[in-house]
């Protein structure tokens, strides 16, 4: 009898779900190891949200005395910039975690391991959440200290806003990763650029009504615009717009399904064409 019969590969916990969770946890651990070995990576995660927040804090101070719109709610711009960073960091955290595998030519190892593509996606989402929290939470804390602008004043709807923006970031990240799987590492710059394409129509710092009429239609097809409109409704009017939350959630689920579909299709095509070993070369 061979020692293989001991079957040490049997999962430590019974059941398919716990085996899947164990593989996802392994992937998260791999990225945590990576972050622990490189403090500049953690610093970079916190650096940009903090700088952005400081910059917009000073702009807000100036506009408070020069703009009746901003004077209505002091935390308007800072809350906007912090929520925008949730979307930006969410997308970047997803895409960069994927790109780490491409850069280290590890996709081949992952693709022949028991890790399923859906579990790979879930692990990237978990890493994105972790990276976003590392980036945004210190900036949100500093905003309270420096400017007395408290993002958490948005109350419970903040959880909804955070979830919609984070999931939208994942959806865009999946589309970016699908593109990288399809055309190779040359498309990695899209990971940095993609999110800025939607920034002007997300109505981050101004209402959707400022946009030309045809762009307003585009804005309302994005889950980000209802979030920022909802944020302004709370900070300016003191009302919670559940219709905007529902609008955002409905749309983001559609985007998530499209993103996951594109990623899984690109993965399938990469297998058919034998690209999984070549991505990253």
């Amino acid at each position, binding site marked *: *009898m*061979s*020692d*293989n019969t*001991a*079957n*040490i*590969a*049997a*999962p*430590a916990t019974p059941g398919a779900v716990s*085996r899947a969770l*164990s*593989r996802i*946890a*392994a*992937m998260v*651990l*791999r990225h945590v*190891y*990576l972050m622990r*070995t*490189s403090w500049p990576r953690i610093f970079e995660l916190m650096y940009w949200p903090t700088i952005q927040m400081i910059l917009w804090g000073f702009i807000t101070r100036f506009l408070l005395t020069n703009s009746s719109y901003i004077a209505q709610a002091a935390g308007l711009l800072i809350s906007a910039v912090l929520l925008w960073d949730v979307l930006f960091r969410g997308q970047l955290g997803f895409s960069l975690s994927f790109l*780490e595998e491409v850069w*280290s*030519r*590890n996709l*081949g*190892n*992952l*693709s*022949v*391991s*028991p*890790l*399923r593509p859906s579990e790979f996606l879930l692990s990237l989402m978990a890493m994105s959440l972790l990276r976003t929290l590392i980036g945004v939470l210190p900036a949100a804390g500093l905003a309270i200290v420096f400017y007395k602008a408290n993002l958490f004043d948005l109350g419970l709807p903040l959880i909804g806003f955070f979830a919609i923006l984070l999931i939208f970031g994942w959806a865009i990240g999946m589309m970016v990763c699908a593109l990288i799987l399809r055309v190779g590492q040359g498309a990695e710059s899209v990971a940095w650029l993609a999110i800025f394409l939607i920034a002007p129509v997300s109505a981050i710092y101004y209402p959707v009504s400022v946009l030309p009429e045809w762009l307003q239609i585009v804005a309302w097809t994005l889950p980000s615009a209802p979030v920022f409109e909802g944020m302004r409704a709370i900070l300016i009017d003191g009302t919670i717009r559940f219709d905007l939350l529902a609008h955002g959630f409905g749309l983001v689920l559609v985007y998530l399904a499209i993103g996951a579909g594109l990623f899984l299709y690109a993965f*399938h095509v990469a*297998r*058919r*064409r*034998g690209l*999984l*070993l070549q991505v990253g070369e």
Partner: protein
Amino acid sequence: MSNSVVEVSHLAKSFNGVPAVQDASFSVAHGETVALLGANGAGKTTTISMLLGLVLPSAGHIRILGHDMVRHRYRVLHRINFSSPYVDLPRRLTVEQNLLFFGRLYGVGAPRARLAELAHDLDLKDLLKKPGGQLSAGQKTRVSLAKALINKPELLLLDEPTASLDPDTADWMRGYLKAYRARSGCAILLASHNMAEVERLADQVLMMRQGRIVDRGAPSELIERYDRNNMEEVFLDIARGAERPRGPVPEAQSLREVAAR
């Protein structure tokens, strides 16, 4: 019940209409080492990639440990593993972190205990705290092999296992693989250009040319059949297009059974 770990029948793969593998049929039994031999572009890596599920076949069937690899690969992947010089381990992670990560990914019950075993067997103790990117080629190969053995695979797929290694390290690697197979009973399928390696390790050799298996047999049988002194000369004959000396290409009986299913 079949004794085969791998059963491949009429496997084919084309890329943009250009055939990379054509009508390949073979099997690998428990405890057997089979070598895929051929010049660059003969179809070895594509064949191994299809077995792993990295590349989808255009036609044919692959069964590993009794499971259809195209439809049910996730029932098998935790029982097999592979190593290739063309796939890296994360370079910023230490050797220990890499092996723990892959141990958890493969569902190894006690990954630290397995890591300690492998570190002892493969002489990795001094390397455990080193980042993967700081290892020499020989050290990387040992670590890559440790990753491939982390789950005690029943089937080990090796793509050019001693490529870019110095003769001493390559010799050590071959010795280790031979001893490991004897100890564990795992099946090994390897692709190689190195004839000394094939003569030393392989029970069976599949000679590939232009995507087809053009001959097969034990190294000693092939040397005798081609009336040559060693596998290197046999390889040159086949790579340069020599006709097979006599008789049809033999097929394993189990393959006929597979094809008939």
